[in-house]
């Protein structure tokens, strides 16, 4: 298909439609609203379901109900709205039905602002809802990736009967880039064997997240864990740039990873042996890939648009074998390549000790500018 100039939010909406989404339930919130509005136009045209819910809580529970029928369903929101979905997400996880959530992050905490941010990494990756559950988290850095990962999200969610989140932010949601949309898929008529559709000519089915007996609940927790282990084994994804001979490794996801790429190129132009690892699946996180890089890298630089959330995952992988530095902007500020280039130069000049706390050094420097 031909390349079109597409806005991230609308591209993800159309990608979901081509992937065969049968129902969308959502509520307006900047910087995600274009996705909702696109669905409001297109879904009825296609005879599919669009409902503007009265709230994000209603939206996630409509998704929950629709998912129980075995249909491909989704919602999308941002910060405050996502927080309201936490109970519903925990129920969906506990009921083991698949669904897709697109989270277009904005500055927080609280009402904050509508600028691009990565402040909700922990909320999504470490589970903002109650109970032990994990969700697949995909982080696009371009409009094309936003399209591809939206489609992938549906496939993985169904394959593993889990929640898949496309975790992006206002920058990807609002920017336009040339991208190619996938062909329109057929919507499968058959429903999975667990779906609730009316007990016609078969024993009745029940979908619920309640297990009053702790030992039964523990079995369920274990089942979720088993599934998560498969996901960890099969679904880790990331992209590498200039890593072959890299002595310094920058790690960043989404838009931050993309800004870092410009900085890495500039640093290379200055002769600095630096590369970039951009995690595409934030969970499962590419621990092994980063651990492997410890053998070649003299230091890591983690770049995020938050106070250091993915940083913990990198630290867990590196385990202080080599030094880790951190650079973060917060509250909706998108770093410029120049800032990251400066950090790379500093690392090239002087390596911190592995036992140093990267947050400490960062905070000291931050205090000078903010």
């Amino acid at each position: 298909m031909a390349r079109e100039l597409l806005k991230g939010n609308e591209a993800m909406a159309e990608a979901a439609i081509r992937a065969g989404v049968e129902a969308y339930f959502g509520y307006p919130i900047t910087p995600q609203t274009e996705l909702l509005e696109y669905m409001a136009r297109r879904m009825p045209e296609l005879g599919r379901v669009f409902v503007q819910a009265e709230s994000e809580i209603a939206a996630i529970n409509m998704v929950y109900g629709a998912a129980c029928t075995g249909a491909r369903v989704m919602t999308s929101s941002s910060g405050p709205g996502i927080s309201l979905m936490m109970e519903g997400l925990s129920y969906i996880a506990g009921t083991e039905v698949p669904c897709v959530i697109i989270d277009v992050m904005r500055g927080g905490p609280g009402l904050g602002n509508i600028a691009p941010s990565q402040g909700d990494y922990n909320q999504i990756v470490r589970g903002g809802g109650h109970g032990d559950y994990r969700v697949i988290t995909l982080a696009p850095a371009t409009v094309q990736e936003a399209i591809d990962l939206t489609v992938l999200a549906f496939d993985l969610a169904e394959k593993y009967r889990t929640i898949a989140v496309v975790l992006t932010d206002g920058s990807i949601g609002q920017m336009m880039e040339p991208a190619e949309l996938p062909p329109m898929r057929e919507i499968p008529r058959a429903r999975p064997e667990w779906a609730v559709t009316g007990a016609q000519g078969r024993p009745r089915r029940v979908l619920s997240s309640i297990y009053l007996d702790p030992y039964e609940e523990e079995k369920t927790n274990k089942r979720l864990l088993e599934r998560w282990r498969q996901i960890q084994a099969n679904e880790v994804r990331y992209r590498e740039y200039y890593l072959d001979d890299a002595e310094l490794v920058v790690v960043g996801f989404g838009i931050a990873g993309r800004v870092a790429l410009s900085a890495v190129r500039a640093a290379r132009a200055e002769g600095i042996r630096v590369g970039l690892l951009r995690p595409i699946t934030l969970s499962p996180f590419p621990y092994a890939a980063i651990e492997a890089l410890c053998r070649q890298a003299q230091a890591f630089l983690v770049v995020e648009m938050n106070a250091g959330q993915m940083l913990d995952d990198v630290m867990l992988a590196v385990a202080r074998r080599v030094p880790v530095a951190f650079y973060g902007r917060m509250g909706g500020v998108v770093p410029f390549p120049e800032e990251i280039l400066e950090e790379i130069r500093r690392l090239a000049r002087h390596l911190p000790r592995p036992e140093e706390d990267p947050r400490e050094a960062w905070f000291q420097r931050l205090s000078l500018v903010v």
Partner: protein
Amino acid sequence: MATVTAPEMTYEKVYERPRVLIEVHTHYCPGCTHGVAHRLIAEVLEEMGLRERTIGVASVGCSVFAYNYFDVDFVEAPHGRAPAMATGIKRMLPDRIVFTYQGDGDLASIGMGEIIHTAARGENITVIFINNANYGMTGGQMAPTTVPGQRTTTTPNGRDVRRSGFPIRMAEMLANLEGSSYVARRSLHDPKNIRLAKKAIRMAFEAQVRGLGFSFVELLSTCPTNWGLSPIEAMHWVEEMMIPVFPLGEFKVPPELKGLRV
């Protein structure tokens, strides 16, 4: 069960437990009319031949295990969100019969937003609302339906309307929304009223079968355990304390169902 034969002559079965009710002992307290409501719904689904087309949505409350008792497909919703889940299901499967079964804490307190908007949207589902004037499952706290002066564990000196507010009449509120089709309040406190309650439940499902939109039946129900009354005393308490606050009747009957004999 085979017909029982009394010594000298034959008897014929005039009533038996509906098959839609699964043959298990329920977890409800002795004399709790949740059980009556269950039986009436089961009878209606059976009489209308809807068992195989029906999907139930259980809610959080003593009826959380309702899915164990009906021989139909079921899901269990988060506290108060049953109408939203039902909306998701019905929009995907418009030709199925979808009903929620919710208590008064679930529907009238935490679930107020969902029930009103589901009614306003005119979702073609049926809601069975059990009003027992308190939170049963958690041990008898005040509900939005707790009557003035009623003692609960969170209104130990009786509900003081100045501090804890006034009871909310859901049936009347929902009847005023254009999206609702059939809305009634009935009571389960004696045989006569139980018969009327069944009629209302029948009407509600008839409305859904005809695609008339949101149908709602509020049932005044007992909670002997948390009221600290015997099952029989509880039946009287409904009549004396609840009905004055929650008048019985059909608040909205769609023209299509007027004069329908059930």
